[in-house]
């Protein structure tokens, strides 16, 4: 016996989520949460207080789950993806859509849902953040699941998660001499 994913809903593979909140508002909210020395100290304090950290992480989970379908990978890619969570892709692709997107823009694994990257690219470009999509996103550190990505971000652990192209090259993407490594 087995499940037909098309008939038995829930569980199973990640399902692409269309965020409930616009990209522009998300970028605006980001400035409220942007890393600064105060948040950095708050993050360090939270990590010393297990109970408070758990409550804080729970609040983050509820908020981001409702708004973006967050799955708590702990290394938030939202700022680079038009605030569309790539971890809701059934293949959890962090660097763009796979080659299986249907002509209609639907996901190959969940044909009833729009590919999360189709949504992400549209949102990023509409908000004037299309260039973010060219960043090379490093592999996920699976030790970070279920931890607070806000705390991780404030502590500087997300630095270089997406590798920024250099400013002076008109084709920054194609610079090999950056010494990029996927670590």
């Amino acid at each position, binding site marked *: 016996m087995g499940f037909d994913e098309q008939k038995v809903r829930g569980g199973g593979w990640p399902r692409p989520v269309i965020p409930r909140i616009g990209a522009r508002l998300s970028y605006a909210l980001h400035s409220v949460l942007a890393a600064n020395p105060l948040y950095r100290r708050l993050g360090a304090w939270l990590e010393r207080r297990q109970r408070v950290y758990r409550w804080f992480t729970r609040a983050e989970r509820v908020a981001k789950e409702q708004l973006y379908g967050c799955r708590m990978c702990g290394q938030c890619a939202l700022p680079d993806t038009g605030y569309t969570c790539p971890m809701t892709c059934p293949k959890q692709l962090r660097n763009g859509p796979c080659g299986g997107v249907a002509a209609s823009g639907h996901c190959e*694994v969940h044909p009833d849902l729009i590919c999360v990257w189709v949504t992400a690219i549209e949102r990023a470009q509409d908000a004037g953040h299309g260039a973010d999509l060219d960043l090379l996103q490093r592999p996920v550190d699976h030790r970070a699941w279920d931890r607070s990505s806000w705390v991780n971000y404030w502590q500087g652990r997300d630095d270089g998660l997406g590798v920024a192209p250099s400013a002076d090259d008109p084709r920054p993407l194609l610079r090999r001499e950056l010494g990029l490594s996927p670590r």
Partner: protein
Amino acid sequence: MSAEPSGGGLRAAFAAGRFAVTAEIGPPRGADAEAVTRKAELLRGWVDAANITDNQGANARMSSLAGSLIAQRAGVEPVMQLTCRDRNRLALQSDLLAAGALGIPNVLLLTGDHPRFGDHPEAKPVFDLDGVQLVWTARTLRDDGVLISGKAVSPRPSWLIGTVENPFAPPLGFRARRLAKKVAAGAEFVQTQYVFDIDVFERWMAGLRDLGVTEHCKIIAGVGPIRSLRALEFMRTSVPGVHVPDLVDRRLRGVPADRVAEEGIQLCVETVQRLTTIPDVAGVHLMALGYEHGVPDILRRAGVPRPPAVLSDHNRHHSMEGIGHAR
């Protein structure tokens, strides 16, 4: 050890600016080396290299590493496919090192079909890395001599790094940039999904030229004959990411049932001919699954020259004689 070809092979074709031809060998469901050898022998002398697929369509098969070795012994340069679907980063890196150790000259790195489409839909999809990250990992492993962990690798492998792209999947406007990302990560050649829609393909190529991608990466266009209406239906509905335009559909449905196979082959021949005229198309990748014996005919009719004879094994040369050469 099979000797390295001197004039043939993918690297040599790229270096010489010769139109490259690759084909595909799907390893068998069974511990059957002969099945790979048989397909390799049909392709030998006609292609620069053949991809050895990695659990194609998420169906369990003999591994691409073993298949690559067998093909190499049979005188066909392998392109070892490696997907992110079935292996985490440890296993991917160890297979890359194995390919280097065994002298496999090319690897093709891709994300892979989801298990949903295969014979084990209940399997755990791994996708620890994505295709871009795997290309990146391979390039730093080879060029910088380090694993993802930062640990040094010695000696370094020397394979050519290939990848795939689908110019026909939405968002169409993003597909050139997606390949640019893979090229920035380290891809040196790319094989595309089946080209049935030349107009869309040409727009994608123009996008690649604008981004400077074609200066850094060889573009090999995917082609293949649709030899029955059943195959047409399968392509349209069951292969993720394949786009069959209505024009092709009408053409194949417009001929009598006994002429469909020939019409499909003719269409493939015409597609190859058109592709040879598009600037910066470095070759074709002929996906003729189950029709390997028809590959020479398609190439001959399309006028694609054979790669230079390169076989180290002298007693194989007689098989090359008497086969008509194209322009």
